[in-house]
């Protein structure tokens, strides 16, 4: 092993010291760890004061931007909800899906109507398939599943947050404690504590010159606010700030470029694989008596046009219901689920989600899960709706 470089390279000073590499083949002595001469008491107090001032400025900056404290929508928060099934709530209604069921369905409203709060397991930008498979493999779960289908995510099998499942399975005691500490002492008080406002994220989304051949694509910006049980809704800024709303729309527009997607034949294969995988999970769940319902919640404007173009209902949604044999609810079939404001075309304005959830729950009870419900045959639109259209 190395031994030829002399320690004389280290300029002798009062803090110079040898390391184990200078003492081959002998017992190593107790290390020397000198403290540099400085007024450490004053330095410490000054550093604490400076830190406090800088942090207060950073917090004030983000509050002025319109941010309010909210729970972080992280894997630890998801894991808490997933554990509810193992902890005796196996008969609950579970919501899986992507951001639409996540942001548009209000849990307190649902609880008021159903008498029981559902378990919110949706993850933005992530197909519900792995979570359906997880529920299918869990004998503790015998409740109901509402599966949100956001076509762009579901039929491509996009898995932005798939890691949540692995995290929940392997979460260490230390991580659980950290989650609890953060939820009680950090997240309720600090607006800046959101991944969207982390320094590196803020720097990355500055208008850096694009590298030739590497077009700059903006990551999805903050869209939602979250509570401790993952009751979530669209951030008010998306609705109230035209500039921010336009930014959100422009980010969606990036994804409307057909060049980003596989060729049609390949896309068909991907869609088929997603549907087949879902059918398998649904069959397992239904064999255990679990009721599974697919829901396609509203989108509008350019987003809806894109979805209809890329994943036509007849080839995607109808096929999903046909292959799985499970019932489905498509927002366009129900006037009471239409006409809501979707500021960035994909999620309902927070102020309207209570009314939306009420309307959705009424349909679920009337047509699918209630005592008198007679679910429409898979792939067939339901009979003429009776409820009034939303205001």
């Amino acid at each position, binding site marked *: 092993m190395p031994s030829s470089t002399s320690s004389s390279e280290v300029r002798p000073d009062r803090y110079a010291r040898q390391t*184990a590499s200078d003492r081959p083949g002998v017992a190593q002595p107790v290390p020397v760890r000198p403290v540099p001469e400085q007024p450490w008491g004053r330095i410490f107090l000054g550093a604490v004061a400076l830190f406090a001032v800088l942090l207060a400025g950073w917090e004030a900056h983000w509050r002025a931007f319109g941010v309010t404290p909210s729970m972080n929508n992280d894997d630890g928060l998801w894991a808490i909800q997933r554990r509810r099934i193992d902890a005796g709530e196996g008969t609950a209604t579970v919501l899986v899906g992507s951001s639409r069921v996540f942001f548009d369905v209000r849990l307190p409203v649902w609880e008021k109507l159903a008498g029981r709060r559902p378990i919110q397991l949706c993850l933005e930008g992530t197909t519900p398939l792995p979570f359906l498979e997880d529920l299918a493999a869990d004998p503790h779960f015998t409740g109901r599943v509402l599966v949100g289908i956001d076509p762009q995510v579901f039929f491509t099998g996009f898995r932005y947050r798939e890691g949540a499942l692995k995290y929940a399975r392997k979460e260490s005691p230390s991580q659980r404690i950290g989650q609890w500490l953060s939820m009680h002492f950090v997240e309720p008080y600090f607006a800046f504590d959101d991944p969207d406002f982390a320094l590196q994220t803020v720097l990355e989304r500055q208008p850096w010159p694009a590298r030739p051949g590497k077009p700059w694509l903006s990551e999805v910006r903050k869209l939602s606010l979250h509570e401790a049980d993952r009751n979530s809704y669209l951030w008010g800024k998306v609705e109230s700030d035209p500039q921010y709303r336009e930014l959100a729309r422009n980010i969606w527009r990036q994804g409307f470029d057909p060049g980003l997607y596989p060729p049609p034949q390949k896309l068909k294969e991907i869609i088929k694989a997603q549907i087949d995988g879902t059918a398998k999970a649904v069959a397992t769940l239904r064999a255990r008596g679990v009721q599974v319902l697919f829901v396609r919640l509203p989108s509008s404007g350019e987003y809806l046009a894109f979805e209809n173009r890329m994943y036509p209902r007849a080839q995607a949604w109808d096929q999903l219901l046909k292959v799985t044999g499970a019932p489905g609810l498509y927002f366009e079939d129900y006037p009471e689920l239409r006409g809501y404001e979707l500021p960035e075309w994909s999620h309902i304005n927070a102020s309207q989600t209570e009314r939306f959830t009420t309307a959705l729950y009424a349909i679920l009870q009337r047509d699918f899960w209630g005592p008198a419900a007679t679910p429409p045959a898979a792939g067939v639109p339901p009979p003429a709706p009776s409820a009034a259209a939303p205001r």
Partner: protein
Amino acid sequence: MVFNSLTFIVFFACVLLMHSLPLGWTTKKINLLLASYLFYSAWNPPFVILLWVSTVVDWYAAQGLVKARRQSARHAWMLLSVIANLGMLGYFKYGQFLLQNFTALMSAIGIAYHPAHYDIVLPVGISFYTFATMSYTLDVYLRRALPARNLLDYALFVTFFPHLVAGPIMRPTELVPQFAVPRRATADQLRFGLALMTIGLFNKIVLADSFLSHAAEDVYDTSKIPGTLDAWAGTLAFSGQIFCDFAGYSTTAIGAALCLGFAMPDNFRFPYAAVGFSDFWRRWHITLSSWLRDYLYIPLGGNRYGARRTYAALMTTMLLGGLWHGANWTFVAWGGLHGVYLSIERALRARFAGYRPGPVVFVLLGLFTYTLVNLTWVFFRARTFGKAWEVLRGMLGQNGGVEPLLSTYRLVSVAVIVGGILLTHWLMRTRTLESVIARTPALLVCAIWGLLVFLIVIVQGEGNAFIYFQF
């Protein structure tokens, strides 16, 4: 638990409080021992049993060594320790690797062998604490050290939470004597310890995790082929990431120990300013390289039995050192490359014994060393040889016409941070951190400290595990 977590902040505050209470020294040591078990079990409680096994086996082995009259008995006690520790390491860390290679070998000679599924979780830091406990028995066996006077001191040496899971790999003679007399940090030791922890966490959370790791991931964790710029940027990013991650851990550990009044050895000495590979290994992961030197290279003969034997010992040491880092042939290749570098350097030093480079050549040799070190990092970071060759071909300009992988932002951050790391290492090459801090105006030290804490908080680290935990 990891240092970069809220859980650790609360845990450490409690430990500091307990350690400052007016309790007896033995009680304080028991507190530290229990806290250390808590620290370890916060990952996976059952693995504490492995710690106990390692502790008890080496404790009794060392007792046996002292009492043994015959050399054969001493030998047997030493072997018991080595086999128990390496057996544990082998089972948990290399079991899967051995099985895969055995299956591949069988397949190569036409035998279809289908082993049972091997699903073992690697206990965090097992490579570190097994080496620490082995050094205890081996030092007693080599008559370099006396055994600890009581089991409590010895158990605390093995388990002491600052060094437990990722080093610095402590020798018993470095730490056990510190438990003999009551220790409590002075106010200045506490504050400087906190400052060291800040520097360490800044390296880990801000530089490694928030700015460098993504560039390395974009190049190494994709099926796309990198061009020259991307291959170099991804590799340079990893060179910075692994330094900031591991040196950051060591610095945090040293600071945490100092806050409690204990001294831990240096583990890094600005390695990217090394000139030559013997110099690099005197600066990089010092406690591991010196461990391998003292317990492997020298027992294999070192440089005492002629050139051929020296080179064989050197290569064996570096190959096994590579394997220590991970159960994958890419790590062996990484170690092997370093072994080759060290061998060539040794031969050149013998051939040009009187040569002393001028300042410009000296710096150029340093940059050449850093470049070659980066080539070895390719094997360390790539998960397969296929990926390693792909990146190496890119670095050599052989991947023409491929699409760019890294954005301008990523390229700029890698250039700024890795450039900054290199410059810092060269400026600090012959200095210590303490000497520089002592000469810096107090106001500036204060401002830098406050700013570092601020940056640590606003990058909102995700509590990522330190890279070396997997080893």
